Structures are given as structure tokens and as C-alpha cells.
């Protein structure tokens, strides 16, 4: 097997650069800082036309599909694959080996970037009027901001980075508050100028974010490793959550009747996709578990319900039943029409952030 030409170039060329700049060369696999060289030559297309002679059928087809090949018919991968079916002799009939030396100069462009850093933390949302992520309907904003933007704008400003990408362990509806220790989240900070944060930097950033709007507050900010990010998604799918629901009954209830809810342990629910999300989710039945409930009376028709449930449980539907698409539900258990007036998420049981240990 021949060593690919690309590999040989990679062994030799870096020495030319290090001798000029006086820095040590490291492999791109482990380095955090990248210099990308973009080399273009005006006669590339002309040279590539040999492919039309070597694989005429294939490249005639591609020339027609302007939609698919809008970036050009010849890609390195594509040409590599096509040449797999071309014999050496056939190739040498159409193209000189070794290739001719370019007779005109080429354009050199470069781009410098660094690998992303990840900022983790937990957020609380103290309002029922803010979505977690930007809310747009047909390109028009339904709400002027979001948790993502209120935090992200400040992170971007403080770290001086090109772009921030938001990730969270699940989400709550616009009209649901996020309380307790907050929901785990992370931002991927692309091309960040500031990459090392001291204790006081974290304090300053926390203050910067929390001063921005009182309804969105963060805590436990820390740099996290890229590999720990998958914990956010795992948490969303696996971890329990705790809620407080403000419930109202159509007719006055008996306290001892609703106190019975506290006796349930690991109650299994069958939830058909709630009608309120049925426009964007498949119609399916999912098993969910209500681990425990607590009840606090407020008046003859009003009570507070504390719930700990498995990931993905629709709490609003646990209360009103969604026309019996969620079974059992509070209406069926209590024997009285029950509806939910307000919902708070009081805990997301996920250990986060997982702080990187100093090397």
C-alpha cells in the first residue's frame, strides 16, 4: 500500500512553517488553535475536466443536477470515489503522471479559529411570559426575547466570541416557571477570545447575566468538557423532575378525598400525545411514572399539588386528563373535574455542571 501523498506532505511541510514562526507544531487532533489555509487555483476546473473523459456518464449526469451540485460538480471525495473504478492505464491515457507543475500562481487565503469552549450552568425563570428559546411563527417573533438570548447575549459579550449555541436539559413552556436550583444548560462558545476564567471572572459573568433581567437568573457557572455535554440530553430523557401545580376543581372537593393522592407510589400513566402538541408530534401512547404526590389545600376548590415524575411526563395532562387521553388522571382519580391553573418546575434532578478537573 502506498502512503497517501497528503500524508507525506503533512510530515514534511510543518517544518517549513515552524522554522519561520519559531513555534512548535502540534497535530490538529489535539490542538485547540487552528490555522486553515484555503488554496485555490484558477485552472482547477480545467484540470478536473479529465473526469468527463474518464467517467463520462457520471459527470454528464451531475452537470444536469445543478440543484444538488450547486457548489460545483467536482468534490475531492466525489472524484476520489469515481477514480476507484478507473484503471491505471486508462487514467494515464488521459492525464499525465506525475501531474504538470502549475504554470500560474494560486490564491492563498487563511482563516484562524480555535476549538469551542463550553460554559455550563443552571438557570431559573421567574416569569410566565418568556419562552426558553426564540419563538417565531412564520419568521415573525411572538415574544421579543427568550431565556437563551437573555443569557447568551451576555455570555457572548463577556467571552468575546463569534457565536453562542444554546443547549438545555429539557425545557419548560412559556407559562411555566423554572424554580429551585434551576435547569441545567450549556453554551458552546465558538471562537472565544477569552478561554480561561478565574473565580472572579465567573462571579462577574454571573452578575452581568443576572443584572440583565431579574426574571432570568443563573447559578453554578463553570467550564465543562465537550464530552460532558451529552449528560444534558441524557438528563432530559432519563432524570426525574419535580413540579408544583395549582389545581382547581369545578365543585368543592373533600380534603380527605384529595389527600388520597399522597398514597400513590410509582403510579403508571398511559399518556396519548397531548392535543396541545399533537400538531407537531406523532400520535402515540407513552408510559410515564408519577413517583409521588403531595397535596396542600388552599380553599374549597383550590389546592397545590406537588409531583415527582419520570422524564417527559406531561403534568398539565396528568391533572385534567386531556379528554381521557391521559389515564389515569386527577379527574378520574378524584371523581371531579379538575384543571390546572399554573405550573412550576421546582427541581430537575441532574448533577450539573460537571466541572473539569485541572490537569
Amino acid at each position, binding site marked *: 500500500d502506498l502512503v497517501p501523498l497528503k500524508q507525506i506532505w503533512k510530515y514534511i511541510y510543518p517544518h517549513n512553517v515552524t522554522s519561520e514562526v519559531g513555534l512548535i507544531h502540534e497535530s490538529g487532533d489535539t490542538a485547540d488553535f487552528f490555522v486553515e489555509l484555503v488554496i485555490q487555483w484558477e485552472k482547477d476546473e480545467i484540470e478536473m475536466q479529465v473526469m468527463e473523459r474518464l467517467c463520462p456518464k457520471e459527470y454528464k449526469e451531475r452537470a444536469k443536477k445543478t440543484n444538488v451540485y450547486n457548489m460545483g460538480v467536482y468534490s475531492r471525495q466525489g472524484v476520489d470515489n469515481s477514480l476507484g473504478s478507473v484503471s491505471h492505464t486508462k487514467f494515464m491515457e488521459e492525464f499525465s503522471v506525475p501531474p504538470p507543475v502549475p504554470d500560474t500562481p494560486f490564491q492563498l487565503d487563511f482563516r484562524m479559529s480555535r476549538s469551542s469552549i463550553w460554559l455550563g450552568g443552571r438557570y431559573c425563570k421567574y416569569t410566565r411570559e418568556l419562552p426558553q428559546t426564540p419563538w417565531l411563527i412564520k419568521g415573525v417573533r411572538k415574544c421579543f426575547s427568550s431565556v437563551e438570548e437573555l443569557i447568551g447575549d451576555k455570555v457572548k459579550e463577556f467571552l468575546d466570541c463569534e457565536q453562542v449555541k444554546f443547549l438545555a436539559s429539557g425545557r419548560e413552556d412559556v407559562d411555566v416557571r423554572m424554580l429551585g436550583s434551576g435547569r441545567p444548560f450549556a453554551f458552546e462558545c465558538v471562537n472565544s477570545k477569552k478561554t480561561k476564567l478565574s473565580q472572579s471572572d465567573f462571579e462577574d459573568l454571573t452578575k452581568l447575566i443576572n443584572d440583565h433581567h431579574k426574571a432570568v437568573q443563573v447559578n453554578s457557572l463553570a467550564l465543562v468538557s465537550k464530552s460532558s455535554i451529552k449528560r444534558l440530553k441524557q438528563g432530559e430523557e432519563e432524570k426525574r423532575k419535580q413540579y408544583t401545580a395549582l389545581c382547581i376543581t369545578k365543585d368543592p372537593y373533600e380534603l380527605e378525598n384529595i389527600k388520597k393522592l399522597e398514597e400513590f407510589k410509582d403510579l403508571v400513566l398511559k399518556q396519548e400525545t397531548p392535543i396541545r402538541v399533537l400538531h*407537531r408530534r406523532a400520535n402515540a401512547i407513552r408510559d410515564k411514572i408519577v413517583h409521588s404526590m403531595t397535596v396542600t389545600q388552599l380553599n374549597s376548590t*383550590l389546592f397545590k399539588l406537588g409531583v415527582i415524575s419520570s422524564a417527559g411526563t406531561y403534568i398539565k395532562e396528568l391533572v385534567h386528563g386531556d*379528554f381521557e387521553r391521559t389515564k389515569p388522571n386527577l379527574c378520574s382519580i378524584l371523581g371531579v373535574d379538575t384543571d390546572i391553573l399554573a405550573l412550576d418546575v421546582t427541581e430537575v434532578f441532574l448533577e450539573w455542571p460537571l466541572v473539569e478537573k485541572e490537569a
Partner: protein
Amino acid sequence: SDLSSIKANKGPIEDSIDLTEKYQSVTERYYTPYYKIDEDRTRKNDLCLQLHSNRISLVTLAPSHPILTKNLQIKEVDCQVTKSLDRKKNKAVGKGKKGGQNLDPTSILCHLETEDARYAVEAIAPSKLICMNKLVLDNPSLIRNRPDAEGHIAILLPYLGQIEECKASLLSKEAYDKIISEER
């Protein structure tokens, strides 16, 4: 409105919302009714489309329907609409409800067999059928007892481009109430 209009509320849940609003059922709270009344005013096969804010719609009987006003017993909910078309066999797969039966406003969802008459329930909206309500197939009395809740007959996904035209062809609650009260 802007950022300053949003206030932070860290208090207990009962202090975080306006409790003075009167009790509304789930249907009243989240759905808007549109009515299609029967041209034949002796038959009065009046129907209602309960439209959720996300466009999903429930087909139900209107309060003026004889099944509700005369408290008729429903012997059967017959989903075999034609020899080859059984609404029970509807399969709407995935987010886009692929394969869901295509419905015109006058497509028949099912027939309600009562001691008095056999009523055809129309789809009302041009839409895809998501599902017939299994609960009423097994327990038809729900249609009479909980018409706009557990007794809904079918769940539809109206076609996005046609929903406004459909709404315009139906009666609002105000218009419907006026017509019905004038009939008495």
C-alpha cells in the same frame, strides 16, 4: 411590549397568577368553537368544530343537536362509511400524520345510530383525520354526556392553507347563539 413589561415573580404559586378569573373547562379555556348548523331545521343535525390554538380540531355535536336536547340514546357509532372505507382503520403516522384519511368539509366521519334517526357526522373542515375518538366507539353515551370534552367524535388536522376560509364559512359562537335563541 418589551423587557421592562416582564416582571420577576419568585413568590408561591398561588401568588403568581390572577386567581379572580372564573372557572373555565378545558374546552372553554383552550378551544374556540365554530358551528355548522343543518339546513334542515326539523332534523337539526347541528355540529361543532372545536379549534385549538395550534389548529388541531375536534368534531363534536352542537348543543342544539337532538341527541343532546332530547337526550337520545346512541345505539352505535358506525365508522364503516362506505363498503371500502372504515374510519376506524385510519392510520396517521409521524409528525406530519402521513397516511391520515383526507377529509372534505362534507366527508362523513361516522353515523350515529339512535332510536329516532341515523345522523351523519361530517368532518366540517378540509383536513387529515388524525383519529376517531376510541372512547366514544366503546362508550357512545359519552357523546351525549360529555359532548365537548371526552365525548368528542374525531380529532382532525385542518389543512393550513384552507383553515381561514373554513372558519369564515362557519358560525361563531355569538352568531350561533343568536340563531338558536331565535328558533325557540
